């Protein structure tokens, strides 16, 4: 007679993972046996992220009444079950204090993951003592010796006068140092939002050139989201880099000002000297060609295995002559072709078609190549590979498993157009179109390990780079700019791809002749039974750099933003909710 508690734990987890938190609260009340099985899972993940103005609250309203109840039920429960919590996501400062108890029993000491978003700083001037939120954070870090993952974010800051900014900044340094010192040595990944404005020139405070920090020998991934790079050589970023000898992955967010204020030598020197195992780099932001090149060149002797460049050029720069990722940076990237396994370019159209072709012809270890759109609506460009370049020479990247790249400049078959007396005579013939497409398919077929193939990278709302859509009734929608048209049809040479035994995800798009046609449908079910056609709206995520969870909860306003420890006792709930 098997019952639920007979199931092995990993099987129980499969079931529990499919249940909502609300369902879990019902399961724990079924019987003693079920309580023992379900309660630890229920308490494993404590998520209090909320935005008062948005609907993404989870547990917020209930948490408030629960913690404020007159019988102290909330705090008693936290004391009793705090040790079960392994993932903690907290938004407001006062709540953080609750998880730090003086008792040994039941205190929150088994965290594996902590995500802490600071609340809005109060308007009142801060005093010189350590703000309670920072103290709570420091204490929480000190009592969680098995913490593996820490994510700290500052939310929207305040627009306040210069004087106040200065005082907060002064505060910041000492509190920064306090929590940095408290970082547990078990830490494996650290994600920091260290954005602070460089608009104010008021502070003269210098960071100490050296400060004692624990050696974070397990830290392999360090992500700076929104780093404004002023004084990068002195700030906590460099301080941290010096104590991560086993760092493998580094993410930097850069801004245009980097070039004028960065002590480049120092930064490159630090990376080379202190992070010999660094092999993965992500750069997100906008900067000059020279600066991108500098950062790419900063690697230690090993050579990059993974490079992700997300270029965020604001629209306003288009005509201002600021070039962004370009020739120098491309050269720098290509120098690492021998070691590169993962390359992802988001909106870096400065890495042009010739560069892409060169990469594919020299990077023998390459496993993933993504040339995609960046996030956000400003990014209307994507790097791409022209058909002319593609067919020039053979690719050496036979290890390639994932290929997502726009292929353009394919001559358009004119037979798809209704006969038009005014047709442009320079439009290529169908023969030419099919010939080129066959060549492309043959090139793709050499990638025997391919699992993912995406050559249609239109945004869901953007038909600019798509092919001409030919409708069933003979009408057509002509695209404005591009001569795309890799057709997913047997005529075009699709058949040669049936040999790709590992293929699981495809988006080729192209003219409606193709997978809408019967012959292709039959072909598809016969030769590609396991292949999933990626819908147009689905975006290709970066497997090396997973999106930071709940980043959408952070407003990225240009307002002054502070590191998390600035906030000083912000109360998420009104009036007298500060419980002890």
């Amino acid at each position, binding site marked *: 007679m*098997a019952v639920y508690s007979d*199931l092995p734990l990993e099987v129980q987890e499969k079931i529990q993972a499919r249940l909502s938190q609300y*369902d879990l*609260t*019902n*399961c724990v009340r079924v019987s003693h046996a079920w309580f023992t099985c379900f309660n630890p899972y229920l308490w494993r993940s404590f998520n209090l992220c909320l935005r008062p103005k948005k609907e993404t609250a989870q547990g*917020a309203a*209930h948490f408030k009444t629960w913690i404020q109840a007159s019988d102290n039920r*909330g705090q008693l429960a936290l004391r009793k079950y705090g040790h079960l919590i392994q993932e903690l996501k907290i938004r407001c400062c006062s709540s953080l204090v609750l998880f730090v108890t003086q008792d040994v029993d039941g205190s929150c000491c088994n965290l594996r993951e902590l995500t802490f978003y600071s609340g809005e700083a109060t308007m009142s001037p801060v005093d010189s003592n350590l703000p309670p939120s920072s103290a709570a954070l420091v204490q929480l870090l000190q009592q969680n010796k098995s913490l593996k993952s820490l994510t700290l974010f500052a939310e929207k800051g305040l627009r306040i006068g210069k004087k106040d900014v200065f005082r907060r900044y002064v505060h910041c340094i000492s509190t920064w140092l306090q929590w940095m010192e408290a970082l547990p040595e078990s830490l494996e990944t650290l994600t920091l939002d260290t954005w602070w404005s460089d608009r104010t020139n008021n502070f003269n405070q210098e960071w100490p050139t050296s400060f004692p920090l624990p050696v974070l020998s397990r830290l392999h991934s360090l992500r700076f989201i929104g780093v404004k790079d002023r004084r990068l050589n002195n700030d906590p970023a460099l301080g941290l880099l010096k104590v991560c000898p086993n760092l493998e992955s580094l993410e930097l967010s850069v801004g245009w000002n980097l070039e004028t204020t960065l002590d480049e030598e120092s930064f490159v020197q630090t990376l080379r000297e202190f992070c010999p195992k660094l092999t993965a780099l992500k750069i997100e932001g906008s900067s000059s060609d020279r600066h991108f090149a500098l950062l790419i060149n900063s690697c230690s002797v090993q050579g990059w295995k993974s490079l992700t460049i997300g270029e965020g050029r604001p629209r306003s720069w288009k005509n201002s002559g600021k070039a962004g990722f370009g020739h120098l940076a491309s050269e720098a990237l290509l120098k690492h072709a021998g070691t590169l396994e993962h390359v992802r370019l988001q909106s870096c159209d400065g890495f042009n078609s010739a560069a892409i072709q060169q990469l594919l012809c020299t990077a023998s270890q390459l496993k993933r190549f993504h040339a995609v759109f960046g996030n956000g609506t400003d990014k209307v460009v994507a790097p791409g590979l022209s058909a002319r370049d593609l067919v020039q020479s053979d690719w050496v990247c036979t290890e390639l498993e994932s290929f997502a790249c726009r292929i353009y400049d394919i001559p358009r078959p004119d037979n798809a157009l209704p006969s038009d007396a005014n047709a442009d005579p320079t439009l290529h013939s169908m023969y030419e179109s099919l010939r080129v497409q066959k060549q492309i398919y043959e090139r793709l077929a050499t990638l025997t390990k391919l699992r993912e193939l995406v050559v249609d990278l239109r945004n869901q709302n953007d038909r600019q780079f798509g092919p001409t859509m030919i409708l069933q009734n003979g009408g057509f929608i002509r695209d404005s700019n591009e001569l795309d048209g890799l057709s997913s049809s047997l005529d075009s040479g699709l058949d040669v791809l049936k040999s790709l035994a590992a293929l699981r995800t495809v988006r080729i798009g192209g003219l409606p002749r193709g997978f809408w046609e019967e012959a292709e449908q039959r072909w598809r079910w016969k030769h590609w039974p396991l292949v999933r056609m990626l819908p147009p709206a689905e975006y290709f995520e970066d497997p090396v750099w997973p999106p930071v969870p709940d980043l959408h909860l952070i407003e990225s306003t240009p307002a002054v933003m502070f590191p998390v420890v600035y906030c000083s006792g912000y109360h998420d709930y009104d009036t007298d909710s500060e419980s002890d």
Partner: protein
Amino acid sequence: MTVILVSSDNQDFKVDKEVAERSILIKNMLEDVGESDSPIPLPNVTAAVLTKVIEYCEHHRNDPVQVPEETDDPRKRSNDIEEWDMKFMQVDQEMLFEIILAANYLDIKPLLDVGCKTVANIIKGKTPEEIRKAFNIVNDFTPEEEAQIKKENEWAEDR
């Protein structure tokens, strides 16, 4: 080619090799044993349960072998179960857990997944009393105990 599987209560089951190999455990055993014809003992599975498991494997004998997906996040997977599988899983809850245990032991991932989905679907949206009815569980909480637990977990009740 056929193989003989022996249940814990000593009943023999003759099945095609292809069907039996839906179980990775049996598949590996057969590879180790080689060409031998000896029956394979399954001491953890009774005849009644083995009958059901074999029925499942027979029906799914031609399914493509699942490659382990990189993102095995059950929350991302859709909750739809095939109609045949749904009927297949309409058993009493004891048998349901036995099937899951057998699928786990025999390493038949699709059957294990279907079983877990089924249990989850039974639990979803039910009050504790309804869950007890569905799984024939006796309530061994006093009303005070149950109320206490409810208080302790109120924070999680946000739907």
